[in-house]
């Protein structure tokens, strides 16, 4: 690894540690840094409530943000490469729409069919939502993979993915129309996206699943580098392009499905972070971009979570608004600077 790359990675890693600690430290309740540190390492804390806040609320939330940000960014990078489209992101293939559809079915129909509003079920309701989101996302992903085998062109596949997304959104609209107001509200809240919803035991499940999936996605770096050259060249260099495409789509799709199931549809991170990393490291080599996207995604998600939870915003600011508000200018600045350098040469 070249030195500037190593320095960049260390800086990104450092920013994660710093932002993670800030996530534990800052919030509507003021807790001294020393006490946060002690609580984190299982030490004796002056106030039992402080310990509870740090360990039961802020820590899981920060961990969720970190893992979700990493997952979405890696998936976004994979999507952009396999579709050779800078606007591709986790949401384009309709995978997140699929998750939404699954959740919509459960949330909106449970009231109608079961006679119980899911929002009142508490913990069981949460699990039902997660499972339905995964089922919904996976169903759409399988559909996309099936289409990918039939369709040759990348653009065609991309358009079909977007169309599937529209259809899913339309079905959700119809479902909403026939649902109780209380359920619609529960669905809308889910749709805003949040790192805070995942509670206690579910956080560990989420983190463990992602800890298995993220390293697996790294196995595709050579494939992704070859896909950059275009189908013809990739194939001539010994790559089975069709199998590679399905592999990458499946990997990215599963990552998005899991994250969306636990956090709701988080927009923008997956689209923005890969661009950010290309801008910072000025490379298209996935051996650099993959770890960079993972680290930068985690870091940016932590930052967004921190801002969404700033005193005064507590609980009021949805993560999705923050990701776009922070992410869009950052990406625009990076791309703009980039462009100037290019034309300057």
């Amino acid at each position: 690894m070249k030195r500037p790359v190593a320095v960049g990675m260390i800086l990104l890693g450092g920013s994660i540690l710093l932002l993670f600690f800030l996530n534990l430290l800052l919030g509507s309740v003021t807790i001294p840094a020393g006490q946060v540190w002690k609580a984190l390492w299982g030490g004796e804390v002056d106030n039992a409530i402080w310990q509870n806040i740090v360990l039961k609320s802020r820590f899981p939330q920060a961990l969720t943000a970190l893992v979700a940000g990493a997952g979405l960014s890696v998936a976004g990078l994979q999507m952009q490469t396999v579709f050779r489209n800078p606007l591709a992101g986790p949401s384009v293939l309709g995978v997140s729409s699929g998750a939404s559809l699954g959740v919509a079915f459960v949330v909106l129909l449970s009231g109608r069919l079961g006679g119980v509003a899911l929002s009142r079920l508490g913990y069981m309701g949460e699990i039902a939502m997660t499972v339905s989101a995964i089922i919904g996302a996976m169903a759409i992903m399988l559909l996309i993979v099936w289409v990918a085998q039939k369709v040759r062109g990348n653009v065609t596949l991309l358009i079909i993915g977007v169309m599937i997304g529209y259809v899913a959104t339309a079905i959700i609209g119809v479902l909403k129309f026939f649902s109780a107001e209380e359920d619609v509200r529960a669905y809308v809240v889910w749709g805003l996206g949040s790192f805070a919803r995942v509670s206690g035991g579910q956080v560990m499940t989420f983190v463990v699943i992602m800890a298995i999936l993220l390293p697996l996605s790294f196995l595709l770096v050579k494939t992704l580098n070859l896909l950059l050259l275009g189908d013809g060249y990739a194939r001539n260099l010994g790559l089975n392009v069709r199998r590679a495409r399905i592999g990458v789509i499946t990997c990215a799709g599963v990552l998005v499905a899991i994250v969306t199931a636990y956090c709701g549809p988080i927009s923008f991170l997956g689209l923005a972070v890969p661009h950010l990393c290309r801008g910072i490291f000025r490379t298209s080599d996935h051996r650099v971009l993959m770890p960079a996207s993972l680290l930068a995604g985690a870091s940016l998600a932590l930052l967004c979570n921190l801002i969404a939870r700033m005193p005064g915003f507590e609980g009021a600011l949805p993560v999705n608004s923050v990701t776009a508000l922070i992410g869009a200018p950052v990406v625009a600045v990076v791309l703009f600077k980039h462009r100037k350098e290019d034309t300057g040469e």
Partner: protein
Amino acid sequence: MKRDNTIQIVDLSIGYPGKHGVKTVAEGITDTIRSGELTCLLGENGAGKSTLLRTLSGFLPPLFGEVAILGKPLRTYREKDLATVISVVLTEKNNLQNMTVTELVGMGRSPYTGFWGRLSAEDRHKVGEAIDMVGIAALGDRLVQTLSDGERQKVMIAKALAQETPIIFLDEPTAFLDYPSKVEILHLLHRLSRDMQKTVFLSTHDLELALQIADQLWLMAKGRGVTVGSPEDLALDGTLDAFFNRPGVAFEKQTGLYRIEPDYRGTVRLEGDPVCCAMVQKALRRSGLRAERDIEADRTVIAAPHAYILRESDGTTHRAESIAVLLEHITDHL
């Protein structure tokens, strides 16, 4: 020099399976392509040049017949093995961003690298060699998006060299290049075929250049199949003349090149300095006048440097200092 028949084609039919049955582009192709030679594939748009290249590269299954690469049927090659036998330079433009020339050429080593695609010291050495051979050492650290079309084409050729395959296929490598770059690329490919005993097979529309540089020509025409031979043999037996025969183009057997041939409006006899005569001939031909040294004609031009004298049939003369002035006078009084 030892030349092997690296590619043997027997009764090959190429085409695409379409919705309404199979679309056959060409059939009954039987020939060989040899190592140490530059073979140029010529033909009009739609004659099936790309289809043939795609079939020979293994991208497209043949409809019928057999292709043997290095004595082994093409269809029995695994993708991984084929990548070490055939390298390609394609027309497809990869919109690469932020990749350096060295990195791109390094991608040619992919068939030899391990799971992560990391280049070993040996790989990097071979990438350096390939870059030197193509003469783009100065471009090594440039980003691919900042290169000109000609430079980019050389980079892709370097990639093909880094791939270390005995066979290189190129689909219109001279398209979109300016004339000197076209010549440079073809010379480079010719040199590589000689020096490294590579089998170089390329399609092109640059007829004139192909006639001068190619060792073998493959002429492809819709419905007429493929005709193969050296440019000189094809010139002598009239194949080239028949192949591109259309109004306004004539094939000159003396030079073995094509010439733009207008409908002549008159004739002029030339006398004097041979070099000046040749230039006057060229200028008059452009204006639709056939000018020769050894013909009888009403008008005569006596050419010497800076002195061109036109003698009309009635004996009047007109003196011009340059060919441009002479030409102006003749066309005015035509």
